């Protein structure tokens, strides 16, 4: 896949998480006018002793584990309180545990949704374990309901034992291409799965969080900036912004993230993975066993904005029969897997096309857009929203997660 972006652009990253030991000197609630303390878990709300608005609004996912207010000074960065986090995750309902810090509350007059000039979000973590713990922090661009939201991909960072300052720098130029940065619904903090059969906290690391701050900059990003895509490309996963193209569906598994091919093994040869075209990066995702595969739609959704801003924007109805959507996919499992590409326009009709993936092989999947258009002739107009890569029938039967790699989402002219 040809490289579309300059080095300068490549240097732009949507989030840059920097773990460091340097401690901030100014510990006041609002360090400066352009720094907003989301919470330091100190604010007493009226007569609610020990309870702050900061913790009350935190949304815990079903299998997250537990959070609670901490008053042990050892684990407090500033003031007298911090948040104790015990991330577990689902055991059978396998999931990455994360919590959401909403940026809006009508009840409490909270409105920090405008990220159009935000440079970074900073958090202070204390890892009470003797071993490293991975954390990922990112944005929740939208929340539809408690089970439906969009979430930027996980970028794992390491928490060493003791205090860690995590700074997630936001590249507004990239983010604004995909999300409405004036109305970001929340932040998320994710951990790796530490579930146990008894659904307790026995495997859950003990982490403390303090001083969540949002740092605003001087520059406001324009409302719209075109996605710097190539002629037919949607993304090749060589750029950090590409991580926002795919989201999981909120159901167990998938967990898409951009990875370096060399960091993963081909499980057949035990040699480092290589991409189909020799590029450095690709997208990794997983599939896990679920209780009731016939009733659980698992998979990845393609960010509508990414599709809209790609080749789609120039596509005409006349082009459809000549254009395919394509991607390369590698099944890193010892058996054949059936995946589907599903276009679901929100009505009862939908397009579904399956692909059988042979073990340990890169394959190219293509579907002619006319097939989708015939199901939904509004397809071109809406720009391919609701496109998912999913698996329902014959879903994962393995007790361990299955691994896949995906690369080079693109359009191609039919030969």
């Amino acid at each position, binding site marked *: 896949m040809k490289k579309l972006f300059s080095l300068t652009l490549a240097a732009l990253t949507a989030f840059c998480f920097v773990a460091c030991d340097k401690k901030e000197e100014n510990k006041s609630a609002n360090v400066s006018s352009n720094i907003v303390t989301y919470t330091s878990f100190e604010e007493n709300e009226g*007569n*609610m*002793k*020990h*309870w702050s608005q900061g*913790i*009350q*609004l*935190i*949304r*815990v*996912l*079903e*299998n*997250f*584990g*537990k*959070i*609670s207010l901490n008053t042990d000074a050892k684990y407090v960065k500033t003031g007298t309180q911090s948040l104790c986090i015990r991330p*577990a995750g*689902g*055991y*059978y*309902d396998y999931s990455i545990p994360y919590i959401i810090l*909403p940026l809006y*509350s*009508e*009840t*409490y007059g909270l409105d920090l949704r405008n990220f159009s000039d935000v440079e970074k979000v900073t958090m202070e973590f204390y890892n009470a374990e003797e071993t490293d713990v991975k954390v990922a922090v990112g944005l929740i661009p939208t*929340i*539809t*309901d*408690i*089970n*439906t939201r969009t979430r930027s991909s996980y970028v794992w960072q390491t928490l060493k034992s003791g205090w860690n300052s995590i700074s997630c720098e936001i590249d507004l130029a990239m983010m604004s291409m995909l999300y409405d940065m004036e109305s970001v619904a929340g932040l998320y903090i994710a951990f790796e799965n530490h*579930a146990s*059969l*008894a*659904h*307790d*906290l026995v495997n859950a690391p003990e982490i403390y969080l303090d001083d969540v701050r949002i740092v605003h900059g001087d520059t406001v990003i324009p409302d719209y900036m075109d996605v710097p895509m190539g002629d037919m490309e949607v993304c090749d996963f060589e750029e950090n912004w590409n991580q926002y193209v795919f989201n999981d569906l909120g159901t167990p598994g998938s967990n898409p993230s951009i990875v370096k091919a060399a960091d993963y093994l081909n499980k057949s040869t035990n040699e480092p993975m290589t991409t189909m075209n020799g590029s450095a990066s690709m997208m990794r995702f997983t599939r896990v*066993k679920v*209780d*009731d595969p*016939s009733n659980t739609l698992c998979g990845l959704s393609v960010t509508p904005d990414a599709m809209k801003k790609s080749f789609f924007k120039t596509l005409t109805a006349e082009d459809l029969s000549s254009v395919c959507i394509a991607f390369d996919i590698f099944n890193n499992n010892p058996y054949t897997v059936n995946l589907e590409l599903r276009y679901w326009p929100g009505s009862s009709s939908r397009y579904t096309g399956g692909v059988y993936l042979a073990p340990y092989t890169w394959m190219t999947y293509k579907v002619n857009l006319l097939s989708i258009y015939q199901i939904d002739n509004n397809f071109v107009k809406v720009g391919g929203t609701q496109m998912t890569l999913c698996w329902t029938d014959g879903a994962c039967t393995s*007790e361990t997660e299955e691994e896949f790699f995906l690369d080079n989402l693109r359009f191609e002219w039919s030969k």
Partner: protein
Amino acid sequence: MRKFSVCVLALLMGACSVLSSCSEGAGTENKPSQNNAEYELWSAPNTEKILLEAGENSTDYSAVRSDAKIVVDTAKAEYEAAQIIITSKTDVDSYTVKTADLKDADGNVYAAENVVVYNMMYVQVNTIYESSRGGTPGMWPDGIMPMDTAVEYGLNKMSKNENQTIYFSFNTPAGQKAGFYTGTFKLTIDGKVNEIPVSVKVRDVTVSETVTSKSIFLDTWQYYLGEYDGTQEMLDLYHERLMEYRLAPGYLVTDYNYSEESAEYYAEKVLEFASNKRFSNYLLPVQTTSLKISSETFQLFCEKILLKSFESGINLLDKAIVYRLDEPKPSQAPYLLALNETFETAKTDTVNLFRANAESYAAKYKASYEAIENRACESFDAFLDAVCASVSAMQNVVTTKYEDYFDPDTTWCPLFDSYDNPSDLAMYEQQEGDRWWYGCIIPNAPYCTYHIEDYLLAPRVLGWLQSVYNVRGNLYWGVNNYADLQSGYQYVDDLYSVAARYTVYYNGEGWLFYPGARYGTEPIATLRLEAIRDGLEEYELLQAIKAQYEQTAEKYSLKVNIDATLENITQFLHSGAQINATTESFATARKALLDWAEFSESGVTFLDFTDDGEGNVSYRLFVPDGVSLTCSLGEGYGTVTNIDGGKIYQYNISLSSYEGEKNVRFTANDGTKSYSMDRQLSGKVEFLGGEFYKANLTSGAEDANTLMVDALDGSQTQWLKLAINGFDEYNKSENLGYRKVVVKGGDMISKFTTELSKATIKFYYDAPAGSEVTVSWYVKYKGLNGRVLVAQAVLKGGEITELTWNNIYTVQNLKTRAIEDFHFQYKETSLEANATAETLDDVYVVSLSFYGL
């Protein structure tokens, strides 16, 4: 302004209290309410909800208000509550409560530790959904927070013009000596100590600590959103809290699949809870494909639980229930059939598996099982038989009313109001195994709801109705739904202030707890849960009496119609499945229940109670040898007949001429102890013939053919022979399949006032046996759209049938509105909905009876 018709109760309570303290000798002198410029103290029955708002334009509680004192009448092993209200005239900075031991005349102690004090929490209700109860928007009492927690968090303060309820829960130990205990609690308000006189009457009856009712109160909703904790430990806490309230959770674990490992873990959880006497049942996970149950995984789960049963000596499968299909649509009839069929197959396969493995089970578990001291069955083989029987009897509860198009072998779990449909009721009575019912948003009051603005008595009386209708199981979809279902479940910022979390109307729907996380405590219960438990405790007392009566019937070869006595005692609590109890009528019924439970210890048994629908009532009692019986009716009402082992007493009263006391007191004495029980009579009865009905007919009956004729039963009276027109055009177009008779205005309607206890119309259906006509009585109130169903009955061919509208005096609409008309709708069971019917001329009105208060 909300009005309460409980003046009599207030007087009664005061009188009782005085009487108790005088007659039993250990009472505390009643002190006047402790009112001053800053606040007033008063009490109200525990069946009343007192809103936070006080001052001008607030609810008038004068009818339920009495001096600030606590009066409790309780069984052993029962929770019973009392409430003291502080009405602030200025801001109150703090209030605290100090309880103390109570003592009886002999110095026996009722320990202070048996009393838990709660601070009432209030939640804003903006929209009154249960409008028939007459409530108004405002801050409604709901959560009960331990007072210590309220003090710790500084919540023990008030603003000016507020009512703050202090809620006292008395949990009387099973071993508490029966007696009359008194003492004083101290309520300190802004430094000033107020003494609250307390009296607790402990009856010599005990509520079963083992919960014999069943329930499915699902608690695996979004508890994690309120508690910030999605662990099994937190779910277990909700399970335990539910069991404190005699309720059973649904699924026991939060995360499971159908693997062996998961089945083993589930079985461990079942065993973990099984030692709790209040663990009545649990849901067994079943794996389905297109609603066909996997026999393989069903057997896996059952066998894992069986092995735990061997280890514990407890038949753990006896408590298993399946609930897989919720509110099926007609189109799902084939799936329901498949579900039931595969369920039966899975159960059979499981029993076969157990039988096939019997020898290997015995080799491994027999010795250890038979070494367990409190094992369920003496022998291992008998235990295995019992477990197999439990598997075979396991129920698959389906939340639907009876429908012709569903598999008749379904374990029906209809909405409460389906029990008011006579033909549906007949189907439920034929169902094998336990009967179930449920409520979910609907039906509205006057059926039971758990909505915050409904009467607190509704969920309490539901327990009584379960005994009346022999319904053992109650299902409710959510006790900790800590989200707001609007378009999808939405987050709620403050779960303590939003009452309507299932669209904007349904206050309290889907949740019966408040999260405890904010206050560092366990999940916070509500008044609604307290009412549910109160009702289930009373259910246990009723069931215990039933069991005792069955033993008496068997021992003396007696025919006992306990349902008639039960119906008579609960007559002022409900009308069919509709709950229209008042605080006053409930207090009377509860006293009767406690009296009845004690009275039954004498061996005297109420064999029957009859009311012929014309005001002629009778009591029939069995008195065993060695026991004497007296009745307050005195001479002239009773007859005595000797039988083997005792005597039969019969008392007859004609309420149309009776001038005596409304309470009939029966007193039994077994030589060592005296037992008394009051039975309440209706007021005077006005008895009218069919001619009265004829004179008030407006339309629907053809004058030429509707006429008075000689009674068909040979009695020297005349009946009204109705000639009811065929379907009208509207009826035909809507395929409703009924005809109607309209009564509009006239003397008949004017008789329906709040002075009326009930009205009974007797019908005769002159048709062959087996023929049926359902008659439904609807009322139209002025200013209200639609008609309200007040009574329904099935007229059977060749029989006289009563159609009764009960508890008319409790109807809120009657207090504020006039009746516009009555519709009596007649529907023949055999008639197709869209048939062109001939005039129905086989129905006769025999008589009308109006029962006063």
